[in-house]
Each structure stands twice: as structure tokens, then as C-alpha cells.
């Protein structure tokens, strides 16, 4: 008798505890800054482990033409609502120039024609969105390394920041513009390119014309579209939200390794 009462009491308590933990508790916990800090520590561990486990030269798998996705999903911005951008788009980016600045010996201003005249790389790779889907596409562009070598990184440069034309934050000013950053290992990786062609055609606007970054060993949101300017910096903590990118400032990982 007392045993069965004990049992019922225990089960009720266990159910209540599971309910609190499962349904309410963790939700409340998500809002606690210290919980976020603890959870964020996993990103450092993941980054450290992947840096140790993955050889810097390891290439993302490249696929056959036959495996290219028939429909490559265009996510995020698909048509930047920016006057200067729209004017450039209207005349095929003929007067547009990519800026390379920041901690470089020789800042550059390069037209699309100049970029196309540089040695290029073509790769058929898988694009993994943070949402979970994957699409395969063929990208042709200038290796970022080529540009960085030409501009000459200063010794204290540690990150490369990409400033974009699209206002995904819909603030109507610089604070809402998309931006991203990568470390030097990814910046100099052979598959890291600024693509101006997709699937053999001029890069469409919905996929980031005139230039889209490809960082093949990271998730899709790292691969900024509508890249207007590249800056070499020593610190990302002082830029905008301080976490190194548009989505990062909204809570996503800077090291999008998984």
C-alpha cells in the first residue's frame, strides 16, 4: 500500500519535473545570458576540434555536372532594395567596382572586367544551408587569395570582412546591410572564391550578382551575396554587433562548422 503510494508520488513528481524541464524550464533558460554564454562555449570547442581534425588544405567535395541542382534555392535577399545597387544592376555592373581596403598595403578598386581577366577557379560544390537543405551548383570566380595577395595583407590583419549591398535588416541604412567575415585560413583556402558565374551563366541577381563569396567548408550564410567591398581587419568585435556577421549578430555561430 505505502509502496504503491510512494510509487504514484514518485511518478507524479517525475512527470512534473520532466514537464518543467522539457516544456517550460529550458525556454526560460534560453533567455538567461549566463545560459547563452555556457551554450556558446560549445562553438569554441567545435572550432578548436575541427581546426585540429580537418587539414587546412582539405577540399570540400566537388561534384559532377550531372549532379547540379535543377532548382538552386535562393535564400535571404533576392533583389537588394538599394538605389546605387539597382543603378549598377540596370547597366550590367559595367561601372561597378569592388573595393579591397582596410589593413592592406595597396587598396584596390577592381571592375568586373578586371576580375574576369584574372585567373579563375571553377568548382561544382554543395551549398549547405543552416536550415538543413543542400543544393549543388557550379561556381566560377576569382580566388580570394589572388586579391589578397595583390593587395598585400598587413601583418596584423586577421579577418576578411565582406560588405554587401543588401539590406536584410530592413533598416534602410548601413546598420541593416548584410556583412560577413572569415578568418585567414578560410580566406586563403583554394576553394574560397568570389564567384561571378553560376552554372556557366552570369551570376543572377537572386544569387548575389555581381559577386558572391564561396567558402565551401562553411554553411550558406557565410557565403555573402552582393559583395561590394572587402576589408582586412584585425578585430571583428568592434564591427556592428561584434559577432562578425549579419546572422552572427542575431545569434548564429561565426564558425559555422556544422
Amino acid at each position: 500500500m505505502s509502496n504503491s503510494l510512494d510509487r504514484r508520488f514518485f511518478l507524479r513528481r517525475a512527470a512534473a519535473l520532466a514537464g518543467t524541464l522539457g516544456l517550460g524550464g529550458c525556454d526560460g533558460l534560453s533567455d538567461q545570458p549566463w545560459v547563452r554564454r555556457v551554450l556558446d562555449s560549445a562553438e569554441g570547442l567545435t572550432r578548436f576540434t575541427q581546426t585540429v581534425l580537418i587539414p587546412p588544405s582539405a577540399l570540400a567535395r566537388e561534384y559532377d555536372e550531372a549532379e547540379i541542382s535543377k532548382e538552386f534555392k535562393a535564400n535571404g535577399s533576392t533583389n537588394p532594395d538599394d538605389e546605387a545597387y539597382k543603378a549598377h544592376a540596370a547597366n550590367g555592373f559595367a561601372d561597378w567596382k569592388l573595393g579591397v581596403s582596410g589593413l592592406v598595403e595597396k587598396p584596390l578598386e577592381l571592375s568586373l572586367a578586371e576580375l574576369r581577366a584574372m585567373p579563375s577557379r571553377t568548382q561544382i560544390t554543395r551549398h549547405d544551408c543552416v536550415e538543413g537543405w543542400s543544393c549543388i551548383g557550379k561556381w566560377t570566380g576569382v580566388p580570394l587569395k589572388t586579391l589578397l595577395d595583390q593587395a598585400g595583407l598587413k601583418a596584423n590583419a586577421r579577418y576578411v570582412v565582406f560588405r554587401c549591398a543588401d539590406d536584410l535588416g530592413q533598416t534602410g541604412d548601413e546598420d541593416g546591410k548584410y556583412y560577413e567575415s572569415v578568418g585567414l585560413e578560410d580566406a586563403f583556402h583554394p576553394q574560397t572564391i568570389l564567384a561571378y558565374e553560376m552554372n556557366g551563366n552570369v551570376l543572377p541577381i537572386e544569387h548575389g550578382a555581381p559577386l558572391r563569396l564561396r567558402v565551401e567548408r562553411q554553411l550558406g550564410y557565410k557565403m555573402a551575396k552582393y559583395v561590394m567591398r572587402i576589408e582586412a581587419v584585425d578585430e571583428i568585435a568592434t564591427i556592428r554587433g561584434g559577432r562578425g556577421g549579419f546572422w552572427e549578430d542575431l545569434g548564429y555561430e561565426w564558425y559555422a562548422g556544422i
Partner: protein
Amino acid sequence: MSEQQAVIYRHSLSIRVTHWVNALLLLVLLMSGLQIFNAHPALNFGSKTDFEQPLIAMEPMQHGDKVMGITTLFGWQIDTTGVFGLAGSEDEGYDARGFPWTVTLPGHRDLSMGRRWHFFFAWAFVINGLIYLIYSFASGHIRRDLAPTEAEIKHIGASISEHARFKFPKGEEAKRYNVLQKLTYLLVALVLLPLMLLTGLAMSPGMDAGYPILLDIFGGRQSARTIHFLAAGGIVLFVAVHLFMVLVSGVWNNLRSMITGKYVVEPAEETK
């Protein structure tokens, strides 16, 4: 005169601690995993996503002038409006999602937070799992308690029929796991849970670059995602059956043995 009840020490401290830690970790991993799933509630095999023909999906679909939540399962389409795929109404606003937010972590759409929970707890799961595996192999727990003997395998049919009639062993027999338990625990600990880790890693573009074998063994990143989901379902099924067996085979004795280690063995029936 019947024999005395015997109290045996059934579970070592390492097993008890890693068991309960694992139970908590799996709950958080499941709920945050469903949050992540909800960001793209569709699955298919291969390298890339087939948006048109998913094998499994929970999506809103237009049917005439009505929007419905449709769950697709290997070609079958089931109306699950209100539960999977779509909830809400035209007046209150539709909510297109896979699983209901009551079972996700956090309990509303928040992919970045779901990922934070998932990856932190994934690390804890790996560490806890390693402790369990190292202990279990080093101490002989796997060989002594979990590996079935040849005789047990031969008599598996009898064990299945006893289970089906909810007849549980007493006396000497009750001191050991029976053959179905052994095989199930081995399957979960050595196959299902490691599979969760490997399919999880196969979804990492970085790990795929360093270890393309991850893509080859599972047949592509989207296959890995699908297997990750199905294996998670397998774990949920295991837990459901496990809890049921705990309930019907002496809940208090079972719980105590996993908390304090002590397990009461009822004497074997005297006749026969």
C-alpha cells in the same frame, strides 16, 4: 518455505551516472533537434535536397480553397492539419512548421537558439558516451553483462514468447539481463547512439571536407540528415518500450537499481 529475497548490486556507479546523464541529454537533443528540423521539415536521400519530392515532409499545401498541413511519408500523404505541417487558421494566422512548438526547444521558432542547445548538448553527449564506452569495455561490463551467450541466442524464441506474455524471470535468471535486453542495449549503445553522432558530423561541411568518407558511408549529406532523423525516431521508440518494460517488470525495483544500484531478486518458484 520459500527462499529469501536476495538483494544484489546490479548497476555500478559509472553506469548509473552515465545512464541518467544520457537520459537528460537525449531529451534536450531530441527537442532542440526538432527545432532544427522545423527550419526545413522535409527529408530525402542523396547529396542534395529534392524540394519537389521529399520522402518525408511536413508541409502546408493548398487544397482547393483550404490550406492543409500535409505529412508525406514515402509517397503517402496524410492530413495532419493542426499537428504536423500547419496549425492555426486563416483568422488567427497560419503557423507553418513541422512539429508543434510544444515539443521543441525553445518552444517557438528560434533556429539559432535550437542550434546552441543542440551542439552544446551534443558535446556533453559525446563526452558522456565516451566515459560509458571506455568504462564498459575496460570493466568487462559489455562482455560480462551485455554480450549474449550462444545458448541465449539459441533460445531467443522462448525469451520472445515470455516477453510477449509479460512473464519475467525470477531467481538466478533475474540476476542477469535476458537476451532481448542484451541485444537491445547493445544495439542502442553501440549502433544507434554512435550513428547519431556520425550522421550529425556528416552534416558538417567542414567535416565532410576533411573526412569525405562520412558522405560515402551514408550516401550523401541529405541521406545523413534523413538517417539522423530516423535514428532519433528509433531512440524515441526504444525509450518508449524501455519505459514500458520498466513499468511492467517492477517499476520501483528497477528505478532503485538504477539510482542506488540495489536490485531485489525474487526467489524462483519452487515447483517445477
